[in-house]
C-alpha cells in the first residue's frame, strides 16, 4: 500500500516525531508506514485522515488497484 504521509507531513513542516506524537504511535512506526514496510490498521488510517482533514483514499492508495 502506497501513502502520502511523508509529503503531507513535509507540507506542514512536521517531523516524524511530531506526527508520531499526534497519532499516538512510535516514531519507528511512522517511519515504517512512510517506507511502505508496515500497513496501518483502519482505526490508525482514520486517525491520520482526521489529522490531515482528508479522506483515507487521499492518503493511502492500494497498489494492486493502481
Amino acid at each position, binding site marked *: 500500500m502506497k501513502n502520502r504521509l511523508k509529503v503531507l507531513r513535509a507540507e506542514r513542516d512536521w517531523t516524524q516525531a511530531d506526527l508520531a*506524537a499526534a497519532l499516538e504511535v512510535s516514531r519507528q512506526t511512522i517511519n515504517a508506514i512512510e517506507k511502505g514496510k508496515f500497513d496501518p490498521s483502519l482505526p490508525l488510517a482514520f486517525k491520520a485522515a482526521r489529522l490531515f482533514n482528508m479522506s483515507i483514499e487521499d492518503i493511502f492508495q492500494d497498489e494492486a488497484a493502481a
Partner: protein
Amino acid sequence: MEEQIKESGDWAARVNRNTLRLGYCTGAWLVTTAVATFGPQFIWHDNTLLTAIAIFINLGVGFVTIAANKHHLQSLDEMQQKIQLEAMALSLGVGFVCGLSYSLLDQSNLIAADAEISHLILLMGLTYFAGMVVGNRRYR
C-alpha cells in the same frame, strides 16, 4: 495538532510507565526466584515452611509480572505489538517443539544428562530476543 501531541504525550508517558513497571516486576520476580532457589541451602538451611513460603511468594510475584507484561503489551502501538507477537510466536513454537524433543531424548536415554527446565527457559529467552531483533530490523 498541539492538543493531539499533548494527548500523545500522555500515551508516551503511559508506555514509559508500563515499561518501567514491567522492569520492576521482572526484577522482583528474579530476586524471589533466586531466594526460593538458593534460600533453602544458604539462608534458612532446608526449613520446609520457609521454602514453601518463598516458592509461593515467587509464584505470586510471577503472576503480578504476567499482568504487568499484559498491560505493557496493551499500551504499545500496533506495529510494536506485531513485532512482539511474532517474537513470542517464534519463542513459543521453538520452546514447544524443542522442549518436547529434548524431553524425548532424555526419556529414551539418548542424552547422558537429565533434561533441565532452565535449558528450555534459556532457549525460549534467546529465541524471543532473536525474534525481537529480527522484527525491529524488518520494520526499520
